[in-house]
Every structure is written in structure tokens, then in C-alpha cells.
């Protein structure tokens, strides 16, 4: 396999404005603008972060809460634009930042498969072909025609995972979601991700579980307060993370 870079993140920084108080109405805005009380702080959620991910690699991003991990994933998946820096992505991305984002709880599982699949950009005939497979992996055969508002949260998550992973994307982005569901289903998820990796999918994972990172990934990146601290072997990075 040729090892080309599928993700290239170059000097990416992103700035947020933290308003002291959220101003959402015109009246408030005018009053504050006039009295010069419209105060905000500039906050850099990521500062000059660069890294490359080669095709087929599994890379973890670790760090404490608020270190910029999720923001990094959102930039890679195209949800946010960096303030500075560039990004080069080659291939299709399946973002699993939150499972079942975009589910309509009034609709049934079957209807949600098509809705959620369309949100992820999956073709309809592919979804139709794999409908039974999606439902059986999520273990929802008995409930496929029930509106998902009647589901337990575990059932919703299982359905979300099952839809997102039915398609073999070039790049799979996973945020913290493997920690949901019972341990048996977690194992099943990991197994499926492993299978996708064998077929050449690149994985970018955010996790707080160093166990999982060591088990699933080949390489890890440690972020702290928006800075890249270390990029290297999972063992080494996880040890530094735990010592922080």
C-alpha cells in the first residue's frame, strides 16, 4: 500500500470570541454597542497545530477537556473553518462526532436510516441494499417500525453507529462515541472499525480511554490548551497524558 497523506493539517489555528454575555437581540446589541459594553475576549481554541495522517493509519487525539480535540475533529470534517492555516483532505469522510445527529424522533428506524444516511451523503440504493444489515447489526429487528422517540438511548446509539459504518469511507472520524452502549456492543463496534481498517480506512479517533487508544491506534497526538504537545507512539503519548 502506498503511504500517501490523506489528511494534512498545516498551521491550523481557530479563534472564538467569548462574549461576556451572549447578546442575541437587536435591542440589547444596540444598547451595548452604544454604551460600549460589548465586551469579548479572543480565545484561541487551537494554535498552530500541524500534523499529517497517512492512508490506512489509525491516529488518536488525546488531551484533557477543553484542549481542542473536538474542535480539531470538527475542522477536519468540514463543520468549522479554521481562522488561519490550511487543510487538505483526500477522500470521503464519515464523521461520527455524535451518533444519530439529525435523527427525527417522530420517524421510525427505517425512515431514519434514509434520513440519516442522506445527511452523511450516502447513496440511497446503497442504503436500500443494506437495510437489513443495518437493522440487524443494531439489533433492532423487532423495533424497526417504531418511532425512535420510544427507543432507549442505547438503541438510538446503536442505530446511529450501524448507519454511519455501513459505508466504507476513506476516512472515519470518531469522537468519544465508543464509550456508549454496553460492553458487548462496544466490542462489536471496535471489531467493525478494525474490519474497516483492514480494508484501508484511515481512522481519526478522540478518546479519553488510554486503554482504547493503545488497543486501536498506531499513533497518538497530545493536545493541551490548543497546542500540540507531542506526536508519536501511542505508549509514549498516553504516558505523558496520564502524567499531566
Amino acid at each position, binding site marked *: 500500500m502506498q503511504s500517501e497523506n490523506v489528511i494534512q493539517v498545516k498551521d491550523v489555528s481557530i479563534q472564538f470570541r467569548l462574549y461576556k454575555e451572549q447578546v442575541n437581540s437587536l435591542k440589547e*446589541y444596540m444598547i451595548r454597542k452604544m454604551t460600549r459594553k460589548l465586551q469579548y475576549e479572543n480565545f484561541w481554541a487551537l494554535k498552530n497545530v500541524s500534523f499529517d495522517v497517512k492512508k490506512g493509519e489509525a491516529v488518536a487525539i488525546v488531551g484533557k477537556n477543553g484542549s481542542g480535540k473536538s474542535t480539531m475533529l*470538527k475542522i477536519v470534517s468540514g*463543520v468549522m473553518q479554521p481562522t488561519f492555516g490550511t487543510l487538505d483532505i483526500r477522500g470521503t469522510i464519515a*464523521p461520527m462526532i455524535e451518533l444519530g445527529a439529525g435523527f*427525527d424522533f417522530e*420517524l421510525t428506524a427505517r425512515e431514519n436510516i434514509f*434520513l440519516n444516511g*442522506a*445527511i452523511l451523503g450516502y447513496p440511497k440504493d446503497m442504503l436500500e441494499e443494506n437495510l437489513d444489515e443495518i437493522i440487524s447489526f443494531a439489533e433492532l429487528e423487532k423495533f424497526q417500525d417504531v418511532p425512535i422517540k420510544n427507543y432507549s438511548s442505547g438503541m438510538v446509539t446503536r442505530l446511529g453507529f450501524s448507519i454511519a459504518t455501513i459505508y466504507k469511507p476513506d476516512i472515519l472520524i470518531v469522537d468519544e462515541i465508543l464509550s456508549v452502549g454496553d460492553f458487548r456492543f462496544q466490542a462489536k463496534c471496535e471489531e467493525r472499525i478494525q474490519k474497516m481498517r483492514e480494508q484501508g480506512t484511515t481512522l481519526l479517533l478522540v478518546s479519553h480511554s488510554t486503554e482504547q487508544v493503545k488497543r486501536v491506534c498506531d499513533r497518538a497526538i497530545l493536545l493541551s490548551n490548543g497546542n500540540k504537545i507531542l506526536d508519536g507512539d501511542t505508549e509514549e503519548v498516553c504516558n505523558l497524558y496520564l502524567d499531566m
Partner: protein
Amino acid sequence: MFKGQIANFKKYSQLLKQLVSRDLKTRYRRSVLGFLWTILNPLGMMIIMTIVFSTVFRQGIENFPVYLMCGQLIFNFFSEASTGAMGAILDNSGLLTKVYVPKYLFPLSRICSSAVNLLFSMVALIIVIIATKFKLSWTIILMILPITYVCIFAFGIGLVLATTVVYFRDMRHLYGIIITAWVYLTPIFYPMSMLPENVKRIVSLNPLTKYVEMFRQTIMYGQVPTLSANLKCLVISFTALIIGMVVFKKNQEKFILHF
């Protein structure tokens, strides 16, 4: 780059279909009469307004029920579509912060589902036409022209509203008032001829007046809309669309910071 956008639209056209069908499915879910409401609602409104206004404005309008309903259908479509489009970005903020999807699809889907509703409401219009023994002309097929124009106009306005409401939530409430004023400035239940000169000028500046009048022309008066009327409508609709697209495109990357 243009090519890329078309390819992107093709990829997500499935999503547009799904969003529209979701809107239609959930709207009447769990109501006994379901889709029938799309027809019953304008019928009921028409009957009430006909009774209320039968003595006031009726002079000078032949077949008041059809006249009223033509105006109502177009205006209600515009009001529903633009209000729906306005909330489309905010209502889906949870999704937009997690998955990349072309954002304009959400306002567009609301316009499309309102348009589907409008087509179903046409059944109500046909019922009224038959019940009042009104004679139809072939020009009724030309009603597709004003409907297309008002759809484009509503999308343009909807894009501006959807952008504005992200920054200023007040817009939602303000727009309710604007819509109420707009009803009275559109010749829905009164004839243009009864207006005093100065009010008439304002009312004829209202784009919706043009669409409503063209709609009536094709359905009630058996006339083919003139080329100049068509051009005027086209210019208004596309101006609204272009303004909407520019405003939306300029701001869409910043939405996520204001949810």
C-alpha cells in the same frame, strides 16, 4: 468550481428529498384527518372570510370565494415557506455543529415542502371552482408561472431571514408582525379598485400583489400574462434570490459561532 457545486448538489439531492418527505410526514402525523387538512384548512378559512366579508368588499368582485382563495393560497404559501425557511438553520443547529452538510439545503427544503402543500391545496381551489359553477379556461395551466416566481421569491427572502435570525433572534417575533402587515397590503380579500390612490401605490409596489394578480389572471380571467408582467416578476424574484444567496453565502461559515 461551478462544476464542483453541481456535483455536490447531486450528492445531497437525496438529502433534500429526505428532508422534504420528513417535513410532510411529521406535519400531520398522529392527526386523524392527516393530509386532508391541507385541503380542509384553506376551505374553512375561505368560508369564514366569505361570510365575514360578504357584505363589505363583495361589490365589484365576481365570484368572491374563488377570488379570495386565489389570494389566500399564494399568500399563505409565501408566509409558510418564508417563516419555515427562517427557522431552518436554527432548528437544525444541533446537526450543523456535528456533520458537514450544505447549509442552504435546510431553508430550501422548507420552501419545497410548502410548495408541495400548495399543490395539494389546489384541490381545495378546484372544489370551490366546481361548487360555484365557475367556467374554467385553458389558461389555468399557466398558473405554474406565478407559482414558480413566488417560490423563487420566497427562497430569496427565506435565505435572508434564516441568516438574520441566527444573529438576532428577535427576527422571529418581528417577522410575525411584518407578515400581518403584509396580508393587508396584498389584495387578498379586497379589489385593487377600491383603494384610495396613495394606498394603491404602496400595494402595487408589493411583489406579492404581482404574483397574486397573475395567478388570478390565469385562473379567473382566462388571460395569458403579458410578457412585461412576466419580466417584472422574473426580475423581482431573481433579485430576491441573488440578494438571499449573497447574504447567506457571506455568513454561513459564521453561523456555527452564534448557535
